[in-house]
């Protein structure tokens, strides 16, 4: 059945269908409807909902519940995610599954509450301390947000790792038609590490402390192996009219949707352009971009973002200097228009 839903609420509904047992959050625009939806639904269904005293409180409650093997979600926006980074590092260190939603707003500092892609670097390059990685999924429609949210819980459990849904204010606030797959069953995974308090077995401890350097190095190398596996198996990318393209646009999330419209218009005008949209921002689809960069007919790349080029270095690293990468972006909560993107393209063609 198709229903009209606001992005934030659709993500919350998807989480519930994915078997989310516990939600810990703190209100911040533009993600608050997600928290409200959880408040309304989760307690009634016997789950745990707490509006925490702060984002720090929320992520550490999530840490506690994730330790117990529950399916756990927390959500916020940039300034709140900054506060959650401490806990995200601990979750990653203790190898705990948790789904973290970041509906981004403009930054730095208090910035504003408009749609922006200002947290790409924070999400994909760590944010908290230590050698760790978070799986980052970037939906470009409400429907995709639903699907990726469900997938996020499975990925988190499968790899015992935090997974972030990274959308911008537009995705959270817009209403779109969505369809939930009623046959969907959340994957139930054994969690032989989960702290349950049972006394008739070996004790279990969730922890990220390895005081002996040799042991911490071993642990971090083990994490690196896990991240390698994630990189090999979980990359998601959409390639749109890119097969025969001469110019490849790269863009993610809602911004990529605008770029898609620009690609359509440019195609109508006879321009051979295409779009590569990373869906997983980490792991980044390096190989896919690399193969386009190696194609003779590809002349250059254009990276379009709603920030000042936070993904640009990943694109450039993937392209390995084989082709030029141009950048166009708007910042501060400004959204590029189709016309602007086309104008930028033509300015390069001159």
């Amino acid at each position, binding site marked *: 059945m198709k229903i009209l839903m606001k992005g934030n609420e659709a993500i919350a509904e998807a989480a519930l269908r994915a078997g989310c*047992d*516990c939600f*810990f959050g703190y209100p911040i625009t533009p993600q608050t409807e997600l928290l409200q939806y959880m408040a309304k639904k989760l307690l009634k269904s016997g789950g*745990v909902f*707490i509006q*925490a*005293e*702060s984002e*720090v*409180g*929320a992520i*550490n*409650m*999530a*840490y*506690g*519940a*994730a*330790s*117990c*093997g*529950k399916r*756990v979600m927390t959500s916020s926006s940039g300034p709140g995610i900054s506060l959650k980074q*401490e*806990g995200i590092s*601990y979750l990653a260190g*203790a190898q705990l599954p948790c789904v973290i939603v970041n509906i981004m707003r403009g930054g730095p500092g208090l910035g504003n509450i408009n749609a922006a892609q200002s947290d790409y670097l924070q999400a994909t390059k760590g944010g908290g301390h230590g050698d760790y990685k978070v799986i980052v999924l970037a939906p470009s429609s409400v429907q995709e947000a639903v699907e990726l949210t469900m997938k996020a819980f499975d990925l988190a459990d499968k790899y015992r790792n935090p997974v972030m849904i990274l959308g911008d204010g537009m995705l959270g606030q817009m209403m779109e038609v969505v369809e939930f797959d009623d046959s969907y069953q959340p994957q139930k995974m054994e969690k032989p590490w989960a*702290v*349950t*308090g*049972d*006394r008739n077995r070996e*004790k*279990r*401890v*969730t*922890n*990220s*402390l390895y005081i002996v350097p040799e042991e911490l190095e071993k642990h971090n190398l083990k994490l690196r192996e896990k991240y390698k596996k994630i990189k090999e198996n979980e990359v998601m990318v959409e390639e749109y009219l890119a097969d025969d393209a001469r110019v490849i646009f790269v863009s993610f999330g809602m911004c990529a949707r605008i770029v898609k419209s620009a690609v359509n218009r440019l195609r109508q005008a006879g321009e051979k352009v295409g779009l590569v949209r990373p869906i997983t921002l980490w792991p980044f689809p390096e190989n896919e971009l690399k193969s386009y960069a190696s194609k003779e007919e590809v002349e250059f790349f254009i990276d379009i973002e709603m920030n000042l080029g936070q993904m640009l270095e990943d694109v450039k690293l993937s392209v390995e200097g084989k082709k030029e990468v141009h950048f166009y972006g708007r910042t501060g909560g400004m959204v590029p228009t189709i016309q602007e993107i086309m104008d930028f393209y033509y300015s390069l063609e001159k």
Partner: protein
Amino acid sequence: MKFKRPDCLTKESMHYCPGCGHGIIHRLIAEVIDEDYKESKIIGVAPVGCAVFIYDYFNFDFVAAAHGRATAAATGVKRSIPDALVFSYQGDGDIAAIGTSEVIHAATRGENFTAIFVNNGVYAMTGGQMAPTTIPGQVTVSSPYGRDPKVQGYHIKLCEMLVPLDGVAFVARTSIHNLKNIELTKKAIKRAFEVQMNNEGFSIIEVLSNCPTNWGLSPCESMKRIENEVLKYYSLGIFKDKGRGI
């Protein structure tokens, strides 16, 4: 009386300095669990601080939290497994400085777990810096001229702060400076756990403890210091026991 190692303590030898109060407090918790909760589910929440390895000494499940966040983590734990006995074990830097917000709100929400708060008046693990609980006049490495309330403010009295909160069911401050008070501390732990298992709300025991190492005193002298100096600033007793009308 037969004196033996409580069943729920592991054989691991503790890393604490000789004469440190943590060993005594661990033992008291273990005795209470052995006596009253032999079959129960138990989950401890470990702090950052001297007791960071507490999970090595007990043979039940633990969640090791970030600095100051043990009461938040314990909230997530207890809400997930409501029939378990859950306690956080935290030093004064942990619970009364960086974790003040977490403990006040866990208490306000009436979270049904027990916080065991060990107050030795210093940041012990990092080398004896001033804590929020450092008493006026006390010399530490970061208050080298003695804590002057005009400059560094006063010491925090967490128990007294928590008493008025409706979610709080049990608050006691005890000490381990002599046998009588060690016995009273055990009683308080027993009662706090009971309050928790009766689902009455948040319970906290502040235990005045010693840090011979950072106080620069012998273990015996450090116990005397609690009696002669620390008690002037921190009164002992059960401040609140909702179920018993206190």
